[in-house]
């Protein structure tokens, strides 16, 4: 299905909410452009769901504003509070919540029936191709309890999209899906925002989903925003990774695949004009990808090491040296990668990489901000994920 519907202007979803849940006051600001995904991350139950429910209008909110483009859906200052059915923000969570008394077909048709003539179906919204895309054709006559977890999530996604929403809210949509089925469904979810030109807000406890899907990240900790910004910046900030469970401090680097080496079964990725070797990926040359490199896998050198197993050596300049751990037993060193001029002689976008080293190493090598240095890491320690809006068709 083409999500391109010229008659409907996609609008960004901006949120600034103050919500109360038992034992916690949550405050967050975030914004998703059409076709882009903003992720709320943090340890379990730090108020991510409360914020999403507040955005949908399913939970009383203390104060704030929710707006689609310039149109406010909720604004405490003006006493404006549209009911959920007038906000037209689709909802998807781990339980799917399909209507048990309706077949999948009637579940998908629910939004159109409920909205009746009010629903202005976008020309791009074509339910048969939606059904095909979600691979639901074989189960249209079945009832929800006859579907497995992955099929239920796909049906619930189809139901939300068929109601022609103006935005999508996802709270841990893969939470009930079994591990083997997760990657396929993740690929599907990663395409939703771009394909339907929708702003998407999501919450998930699994970092691989954030890395695959999100463009912007908001870290919630104890109901407060501990950090926010583009994913490569936020998740590369070692000081923020302490707020994330199961997330090893590291860096997200963005670049494009430049070459596949069939002889050695490796691929090369261009990061800021420097070449990084990674285990062979199936993404074609030119695909924009994200590399995740754990900070503990990164080594720091003064000169390019001549005898080292680190396949990757990147030049840069130290920006930050922080001591961490109990009484500063180790330190995090931030390195801004050297940028090269591209073919139009413009500086390429910068990137930051973090290394975790012992305090001993920091003091013996006397690392100081501003010094040039060389970072090394093994090709095997880089994880490659395509950018959210690139389809990862293997070819």
């Amino acid at each position, binding site marked *: 299905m083409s999500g391109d519907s010229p008659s409907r202007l996609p609008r960004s979803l901006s949120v600034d909410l103050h919500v109360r849940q038992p034992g916690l006051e949550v405050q967050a600001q975030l914004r998703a452009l059409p076709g882009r995904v903003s992720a709320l991350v943090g340890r379990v139950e730090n108020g991510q769901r409360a914020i999403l429910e507040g955005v949908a209008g399913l939970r009383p909110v203390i104060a704030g504003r929710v707006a689609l483009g310039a149109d406010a859906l909720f604004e405490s200052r003006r006493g404006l509070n549209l009911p959920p*059915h007038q906000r*037209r923000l689709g909802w998807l969570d781990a339980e799917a919540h399909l209507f048990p008394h309706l077949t999948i077909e009637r579940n998908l048709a629910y939004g159109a029936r*409920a909205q009746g003539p*009010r*629903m202005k179906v976008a020309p791009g919204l074509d339910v048969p191709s939606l059904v095909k895309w979600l691979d639901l054709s074989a189960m249209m006559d079945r009832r929800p309890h006859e579907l497995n977890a992955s099929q239920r999530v796909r049906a619930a996604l189809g139901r939300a999209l068929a109601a022609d929403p103006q935005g999508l809210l996802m709270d841990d949509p893969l939470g009930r899906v079994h591990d083997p089925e997760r990657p396929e469904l993740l690929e599907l979810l990663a395409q939703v925002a771009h394909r339907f030109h929708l702003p998407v807000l999501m919450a998930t406890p699994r970092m691989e989903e954030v890395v695959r899907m999100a463009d912007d990240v908001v870290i919630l900790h104890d109901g407060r925003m501990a950090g926010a910004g583009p994913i490569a910046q936020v998740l590369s900030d070692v000081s923020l990774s302490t707020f994330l469970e199961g997330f090893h401090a590291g860096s997200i680097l963005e670049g494009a695949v430049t070459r596949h080496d069939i002889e050695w079964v490796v691929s090369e990725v261009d990061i800021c004009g420097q070449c990084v070797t990674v285990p062979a990926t199936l993404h074609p040359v030119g695909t924009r990808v994200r590399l995740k490199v754990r900070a503990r896998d990164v080594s720091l050198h003064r000169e390019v090491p001549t005898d080292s197993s680190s396949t990757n050596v990147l030049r840069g300049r130290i920006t930050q040296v922080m001591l961490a751990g109990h009484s500063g037993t180790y330190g995090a060193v931030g390195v801004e990668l050297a940028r090269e001029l591209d073919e139009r002689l413009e500086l390429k976008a910068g990137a930051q990489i973090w290394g975790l080293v012992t305090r001993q190493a920091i003091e013996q090598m006397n690392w100081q901000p501003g010094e040039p240095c060389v970072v090394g890491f093994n090709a095997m320690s880089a994880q490659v994920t395509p950018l959210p809006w690139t389809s990862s068709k293997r070819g």
Partner: protein
Amino acid sequence: MSPAALSAMWMSLQLAALTLLIATPLSITLAWWMARVKWRGKVLLDAFILLPLGLPPAVIGFWLTTGLGEQGALGRWLRQDLGLAVALYPTGAVLAACIMTVPMMTRMLRPVFEAHDPMLLPVARTLGASDWHAWRTVALPLTLPAIGSAMALGFAAAWGESGAVLVLAAGQASGTAGAEDPTVPLALWQALASPGRPQALAWEVAALSLGVAAIAILLSELLRWQWQHRWQGSARMDWRGERP
């Protein structure tokens, strides 16, 4: 079957049908509200709604007699300000049956509304359904068999409601309990109280009542079973988090 028994049955039928007509929407509303609303004073209100279940029906009948009678405040208001002539029997009997039936039906329906996935209606709202539309297209169809089950039991209860009805009928006929058009339990009582003690009529209405009760209870249980097993797959999934 004697005309007296037939007439009693017809009267009881009318009383029960009228009671259901009033009690069903009322108890659905109350049960829904009690299942969904959360606030501190709720437990007191819950208790108040269920209070008639614990009271002797005759007490309800007595209060209604004084309230609706010539001197009662409610009766005077109805008669003088609204111009409604409210007889203690049978009109008051319908009211009494409602007071006895609503708490019972509410008690039956509340766990039904509590059993369903509480996110179904909110999700329906996000799909563009208004509050009422979501209720009508999701909550109602899901609970329909259980509502039918409560109605069947409510019918049986209203049919046999005797304690309050006896007192009301006694109040109407100034102490003689000689109400015309008696309901089934009233006819039985009248038969036993009259000088000749016509046992035949008593046996007849007793057998009739047994039949009606058996059908109503059986229907109630069948519908309840259907409600529990209809979406069994999804219901079991809901509390265990996975499919059987």
